[in-house]
């Protein structure tokens, strides 16, 4: 099929994989085919770099315009967009930065990309009401151990090794601030949306583990055991209750279910 061959040559030309398309296209009375095809090729790369810069403002501020441009082109070459919306072109960027030299040598990059992406995800993820403390208060005491939570669909949570959560707002305001790239941390960040406002919050690794377990379907009883294994068992009930209370107050829980309802959430 000639059309398929033509489109393949055209796309390979855009991606920089082949120049064969220049034998098949024409410029005009003033410009060569190479110059005119170059309009498409330049636009392809520029458009994606620009879009990534919009979706990853923290990473762009962290890397600087030139560094970001160079990185974005390497990323696009490795992960051409596969989604009808350019909004999803950056979905592999954090993993790319964690795996590829030289970016993998500085964990700030992958962490910042992960953080940017979580905030972008929360922005237009599905709407859902949030449960509150009143939903928990209605659980009969004998069913507390069976409580399961369905989390808000905008919620994302992930570990970070660098304090990107603290640095990002300052970097976006002023990309020239001095940053200690040797700084490390051991915590997690969660991002979600309330109504139309995207929120984020740092949490410790115990709370992150509890969150992961509950997202995977664990019960409140399971969560209590998990916490008790990690800290002083005498302090575990209070700590567990505090974690749960925080989740409900922050609006990251969509529904509270328990066995007394006949079916878990």
């Amino acid at each position, binding site marked *: *099929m*000639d*059309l*398929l061959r*033509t*489109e*393949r040559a*055209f*796309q390979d030309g*855009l991606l920089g994989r082949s120049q064969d398309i220049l*034998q*098949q*296209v*024409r*410029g*005009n*009375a*003033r*410009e060569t*085919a190479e*110059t*005119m*095809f170059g*309009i*498409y090729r330049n*636009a*392809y790369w520029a*458009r*994606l770099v620009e*879009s990534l810069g919009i979706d990853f403002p923290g990473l762009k501020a962290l890397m600087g315009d030139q560094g970001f441009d160079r990185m974005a082109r390497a990323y696009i070459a490795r992960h*051409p*967009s*596969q*989604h*009808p*919306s*350019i*909004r999803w*072109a950056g979905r592999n960027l954090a993993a790319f930065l964690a795996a590829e030299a030289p970016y993998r040598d500085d964990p700030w990059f992958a962490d910042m990309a992960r953080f940017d992406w979580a905030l972008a995800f*929360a*922005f*237009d*993820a*599905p*709407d*859902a009401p949030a449960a509150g403390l009143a939903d928990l208060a209605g659980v009969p005491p004998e069913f507390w151990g069976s409580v399961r939570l369905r989390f808000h*669909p*905008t919620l994302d949570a992930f570990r970070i090794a660098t304090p990107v959560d603290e640095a990002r707002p300052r970097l976006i305001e002023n990309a020239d601030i001095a940053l200690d790239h040797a700084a490390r941390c051991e915590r997690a960040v969660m991002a979600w*949306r309330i109504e*139309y406002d995207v929120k984020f919050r740092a949490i410790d690794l115990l709370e992150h583990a509890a969150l992961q377990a509950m997202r995977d379907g664990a019960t409140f009883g399971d969560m209590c055991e998990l916490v008790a294994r990690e800290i002083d068992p005498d302090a575990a009930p209070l700590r567990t209750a505090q974690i749960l209370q925080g989740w409900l107050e922050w609006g990251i829980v969509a529904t509270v279910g328990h066995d007394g309802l006949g079916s878990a959430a």
Partner: protein
Amino acid sequence: MTARAVTSLGFGLGLRPQHYPAILDGAPEVDWFEILSENYMVDGGRPLAKLMAVRARYPMVMHGVSLSIGSTDPIDRDYLARLKALAVRVEPAIISDHLCWTGIAGLNMHDLLPLPLTEEALKHVCARVDQVQSFMGRPIALENASTYVTFAEDAIPEWEFLAEMARRTGCRLLLDVNNVYVSAFNHDFRATDYIDAIPRDAVAYIHLAGHEHNKTYIIDTHDHPVVEDVWQLYAYAIRRLGPVATMIERDDKIPPLEELTAELAHAREVAKAALGQRPQVA
């Protein structure tokens, strides 16, 4: 959607997030808004909420960039399903995209890439337009894109390609007058020849936009006001086509809404004057 109903849309603008407050807090002189479909093919949040708030006050047209009607990849059914779901929500007067392709082998170049103008491409596009219209349960409108290259194998002028596509499939045409101007300069043909060949009854609406003139070629940037030459070509198109719904696109260097409504008021004046000069047709 009949030609008469579309005509009644009047004069519109592309909906841009920067203008949400001005639109929702005021009552701008805009008859309808065109939305970029892909921007609202999301699951929730502010974009959809704002969209529906504007929709409650204004008619809308859905305009996409990723249908890829000319691609040799299979039609993306998931994309179509999302498009249809959005259409159920928005109830648009028209659903449009472009005569172009955006990628093959599962990739998306996020650009409106040109097709070789051959009988093979025409048959291919028509078959896919039939598929899409069948799935959507309504005609779609396809726009002439600005192009920067032509193909050695081209055998059909673009205007004939469009006209024949509309004849074979019953699809509508979105006539972008700026794109006609841009491509005419880039490929050394007469813009009025293009307009002359467009079937009157097929035109669903008209796009106007600005461009960047680089002396030896023009790039369709949508970041400037409409230039005088394009206004003149628009007047020519209206004299030939009669009253057609018209809108202005601005995608970069987006000015305050009042600048665009002032430009739209000029479009109304140009169209009114052109209709006054229109020869009476029996």
